[in-house]
């Protein structure tokens, strides 16, 4: 038997030639700081040092580590944090933290090499970008990573320890943060799902006996629905739990099943054909998934097309007649176009995963989830358990972006396998599963018409959106165009096109980015034709007070004032500047409860919410500490556990606005209770009166529920639904009644100014700089809010330029199931990002803060497209704006 030295200790290596180093490190040695993500050497999350040089342990045969020195992230800061770790903490160069250990390992190697030869010289962005090009971060923490690596190399973190702005940053840079995939109980089994190879079939025969007969298999369960029909490639058929993954894979390969193939329709075009096979017969429609954050209103189905959902229209017949009239009259101001967007995968680096364990009649489930409390409720309801018998835990979550907001198949499968096997079971999706069956932002085809009046006002807007929702419904895209740019008349229609593809899911501002891609380009085009500054036109057409302030900020930017006229350049490389606006609803979750307590002289805040990288832990800590005049690291935050008081899900940008108001109420009560129970008052003139009183305080606990907002709003601040009248009121009531979401007054907003450089020869677009102005009220955790705003821009750049799920339109196979083929932005694709927070507009919310996650990504793709148009004169209408599309469009322009 051969051995390696790992973190200074000798460890045996398995004889199995197929064992990979990452598996030995994680499974045999329980060094779970090293993460397995892509399994293809693309993302770098598994990076370890082998004899001092970074290597991807997911591709490295374990036996080739024989007699070598391996260092994992746990071996780097074990005794004393490395300067790179401190720099990552100080610059908040992380969000969910799942990619962080890999980045740390690589950056440490780079730093040590750099310092050895170059002292404290500062490496350039290009040097850092090249060195870290083998790492991917889905949250988009690159902006902070650049700063962290540069400052560490410059020697600025050689000194003493630091207190990071993010509460759990130390656990994330040292690899000690445990995610669901890292949970390992004694006797834990591995669950694997057998998935449909058919786009559409009835599974007539399913024999699990051969799987059960495989040595090491403890459970095998069917997962088919009652109609035994599978409607997409990858739909679950059965699952097994076995002692390890390889045995489980062998067992599902042994399962015998026969499918009677049914005719299928894959994607927007096929599924819309008159003779297309129907995916959901009437009786099966409730099996369809939901791509929105709230429930939807009923709509008509015709074959695979569900819609129109057009309740947010206003005088739609007028729109039609005006637009027809303008077209007949060749009105040059009538802007019409068809815009298409690609399918965007969430691509969470931590896959969907659950570990279920029964202890008698009590069930504990670790879930990589955005909603510990809601998932607990759903499990209790589904399996008829009492709430006290189910506990859902998520200490750290490696990204969600909307795809982990409800009870998923990975969780129910883990529970059912654990019940049958009478042992703990982990189900963790592989990368192909993660990039195919866990949901996505649906592709769209949008037809838009925008008609300014003779007086230069917005007269009419028409937007019809077809969404490629797969085995799901409830897309809301066109309707969102009602809540911005008021017009005399609007015709807005949403259609779902259901087909034999996996179900779409909510994704960061569901419907917002595609709507903005069409609408914001139409506005830009209208400004061009009206010979107006695009920001000035928005200022004229968009009365929202939050955005009015952002428009003033944007139009004062040098990059905006110095931009060249459209298509003024003729060389190979052309620079352009574009602007776009985005908004999202201000949502909060009624019933959200926070407990604040004094325990052993220490302040503790508890609520059953979770931190998926958004910074919730820190938002709570900062608020609590601020109110008591303490430092955030002096207080304790308990989240990520459904046993805590009911907390909000991390979706709809709702968490901050759901937890701060009740916490502030509870804090006031707790302060009173402390004062009443403290015998000794603080010394007059004390710098930290509460610190002294807390030290003397008995244990106390107060909790409070999210109050309604004040009705006294600043001028112009109102619920966006007011524009929609009675229907808006009904919509708001339904969201609250059926989705437990309240839509508040005031509109979280973002205006982004983007500069690009276009290489017209190679169709390459480089985003040079992004200025993102954001109005979400008071910023509670500035460094983290900056990280989230910058990350949202980077994810938006991915949506704009690179990302698209690709399928085989005949078979329904997802082809982009690996991180090589599903292309998310890398560090070197990161522009200079300037984040501007306008901190007003939400004074009617206790604490004055609302969420940032969604709004910050909405305007990026149209701003990039508008910048390309400014540079080249070409308006690109299909996302992603890939080289193939750009060269084709430029050719078209040259030919015209």
């Amino acid at each position: 038997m051969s051995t390696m030295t790992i973190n200074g200790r000798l460890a045996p290596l398995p004889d199995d030639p197929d064992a990979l180093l990452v598996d030995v490190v994680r499974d045999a040695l329980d060094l779970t700081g090293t993460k397995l993500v892509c399994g293809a050497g693309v993302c770098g999350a598994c990076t370890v040092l082998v004899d001092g040089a970074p290597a991807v342990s997911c591709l490295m045969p374990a036996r080739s580590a024989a007699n070598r020195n391996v260092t994992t992230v746990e071996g780097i800061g074990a005794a004393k944090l490395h300067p790179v770790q401190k720099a990552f903490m100080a610059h908040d160069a992380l969000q969910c933290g799942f990619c962080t250990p890999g980045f740390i390992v690589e950056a440490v190697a780079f730093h040590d090499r750099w310092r050895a030869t170059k002292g404290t010289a500062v490496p350039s962005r290009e040097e850092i970008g090249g060195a870290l090009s083998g790492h991917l971060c889905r949250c988009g923490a690159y902006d902070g990573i650049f700063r962290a690596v540069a400052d560490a190399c410059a020697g600025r973190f050689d000194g003493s320890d630091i207190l990071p702005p993010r509460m759990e940053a130390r656990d994330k840079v040292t690899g000690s943060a445990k995610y669901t995939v890292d949970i390992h109980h004694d006797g834990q089994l591995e669950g694997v799902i057998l998935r449909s190879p058919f786009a559409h079939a009835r599974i007539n025969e399913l024999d699990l006996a051969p799987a059960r007969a495989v040595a090491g298999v403890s459970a095998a369960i069917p997962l088919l629905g009652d109609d035994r029909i599978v409607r997409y490639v990858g739909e679950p058929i059965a699952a097994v739990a076995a002692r390890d993954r390889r045995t489980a894979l062998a067992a599902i390969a042994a399962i015998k099943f026969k499918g009677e193939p049914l005719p299928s329709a894959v994607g927007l075009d096929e599924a819309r054909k008159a003779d297309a096979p129907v995916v959901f017969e009437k009786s099966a429609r409730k099996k369809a998934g939901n791509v929105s954050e709230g429930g939807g209103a009923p709509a008509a189905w015709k074959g695979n097309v569900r819609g129109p959902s057009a309740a947010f229209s206003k005088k739609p017949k007028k729109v039609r007649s005006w637009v027809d009239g303008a077209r007949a009259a060749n009105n040059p101001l009538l802007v019409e176009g068809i815009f298409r967007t690609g399918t965007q995968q969430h691509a969470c680096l931590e896959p969907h995963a659950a570990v279920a364990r029964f202890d008698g009649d009590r069930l504990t489930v670790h879930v990589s989830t955005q909603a510990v409390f809601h998932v607990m409720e759903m499990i209790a309801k589904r399996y008829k358990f009492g709430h006290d018998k189910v506990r859902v835990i998520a200490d750290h979550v490696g990204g969600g972006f909307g795809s982990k907001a409800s009870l998923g198949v990975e969780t129910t499968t883990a529970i059912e396998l654990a019940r049958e096997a009478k042992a703990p079971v982990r189900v963790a999706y592989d990368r192909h599963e993660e990039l195919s069956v866990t949901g996505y932002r649906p592709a769209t085809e949008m037809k838009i018409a925008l008609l300014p009046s003779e007086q230069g006002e917005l007269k009419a807007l028409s937007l019809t959106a077809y969404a490629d929702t797969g085995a799901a419904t409830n897309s809301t895209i066109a309707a969102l165009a009602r809540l911005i740019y008021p017009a005399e008349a609007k015709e807005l229609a949403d259609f779902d096109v259901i087909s034999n593809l996996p179900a779409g899911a909510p994704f960061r501002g569901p419907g917002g980015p595609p709507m903005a891609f069409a609408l914001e380009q139409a506005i830009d085009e209208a400004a061009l034709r009206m010979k107006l500054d695009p920001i000035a036109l928005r200022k004229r057409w968009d009365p929202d007070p939050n955005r009015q302030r952002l428009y003033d900020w944007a139009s004062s930017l040098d990059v905006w004032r110095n931009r060249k006229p459209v298509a003024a350049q003729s060389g190979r490389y052309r620079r352009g500047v574009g602007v776009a606006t985005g908004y999202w609803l201000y949502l909060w979750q009624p019933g959200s409860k926070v407990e604040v307590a004094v325990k052993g002289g220490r302040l503790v805040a508890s609520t059953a919410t979770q931190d998926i990288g958004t910074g919730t832990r820190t938002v709570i800590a900062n608020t609590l500490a601020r109110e008591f005049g303490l430092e955030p690291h002096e207080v304790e935050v308990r989240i990520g556990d459904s046993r805590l008081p009911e907390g909000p899900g991390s979706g709809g940008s709702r968490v901050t606005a759901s937890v701060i108001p009740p916490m502030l109420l509870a804090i006031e009560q707790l302060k009173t209770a402390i004062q009443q129970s403290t015998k000794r008052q603080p010394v007059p003139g004390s710098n930290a009166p509460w610190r002294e009183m807390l030290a003397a305080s008995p244990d106390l606990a107060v909790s409070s529920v999210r109050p309604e907002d004040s009705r006294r709003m600043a001028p112009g601040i109102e619920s966006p639904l007011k524009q929609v009248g009675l229907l808006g009121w009904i919509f708001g009531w339904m969201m609250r009644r059926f989705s437990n979401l309240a839509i508040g007054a005031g509109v979280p907003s973002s205006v982004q100014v983007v500069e690009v450089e276009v290489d017209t020869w190679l169709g390459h677009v480089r985003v040079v700089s992004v200025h993102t102005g954001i109005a979400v009220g008071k910023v509670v955790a500035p460094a983290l809010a900056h990280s989230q705003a910058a990350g949202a821009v980077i994810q938006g750049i991915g949506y704009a330029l690179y990302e698209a799920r690709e399928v085989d339109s005949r078979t329904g196979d997802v082809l982009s199931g690996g991180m090589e083929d599903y292309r998310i932005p890398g560090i070197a694709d990161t522009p200079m990002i300037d984040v501007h927070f306008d901190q007003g507009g939400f004074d009617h919310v206790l604490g004055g803060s609302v969420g940032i996650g969604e709004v910050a990504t909405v305007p990026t793709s149209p701003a990039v497209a508008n910048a390309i148009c400014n540079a080249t004169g070409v308006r690109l209408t299909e996302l992603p704006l890939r080289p193939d599309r750009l060269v084709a469009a430029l050719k078209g322009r040259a030919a015209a």
Partner: protein
Amino acid sequence: MTPTAVTAMQPSEFRAAGTDLSERRRSGVSTGPLIDISAASDTIGMHWDADGRARLGAFTTIAAIASDVRLAAAYPGIAVSAQGLATPQIRHLATLGGNLAQRSRCWYFRNPHIACLKKGGSDCPARSGNHLYHVAFDLGPCVAPHPSTMAAALLAYEATVTTNQRSSLTIGDLLGDGSNGGADNALQPGEMIKSVELPSPLQGERALYKRAISRTHAEWPLVEVCARAVVKDGTFQFVRLAAGGIAPVPLRLHAVEAALQDRKATAAALANAAGQATSGAKPLPMTGYKLDLLKGVVHDLLEGLAP
């Protein structure tokens, strides 16, 4: 998921660093017996003969090739190509031989559920399916581009390859002409690359490499070209270009070379020569854009090589 399209019996495969094979075995695409191979003194490192010619051992890592100062001086196109491929962590492990003998990166081939020519199937699903990233020079039944960046560079250098069975193989001999859709190379069963021999460096040679991709780094090339030239007194005395990402095998761009040989390096001549890059192209319905990119990459490189 279980592999459903993989033929039961697969031949054995050599494994050097395993950066390609590990991914295929994890997914279940490749299931044959493994033969681990390791370096000997004559199959690793760079060996220079008295005439200044280099022989590169097949086990030499891409990172070693990318960072060798002498190699970069004598064969700049080899060094810059090595610097441009994959990621730092992969370059650190991956070997030259493995880079040449790696298997197709086609998303149909890499999916264990889908049958294809390279997995014993009877046709190419990409040809009639989604071939966005596939060939623009349709030279054989399989439409996947050859993935080896080093092969294109070595083709530009007219390097030869020694195996445990044969010597003096050209890159064409090694990889075939693209007509065998079932294979990624023309190695015989049991045949293993041992080294690569480079011809004498040219006086005054300059060389460049560029790939067209959507992002900045770490992406399989849409188009890549390694270009070498000796330009004296403003005239191309020698020029070689080889392109990857566009055909089942790397291609020499003979028409571009012919258009420049002994010609003055004027802007018009460069543009005209770049236009010749697509000579002989046969794009697929979704790959016409690669021809524009190919012309663009060649033009870019020629401008870089011209004085």
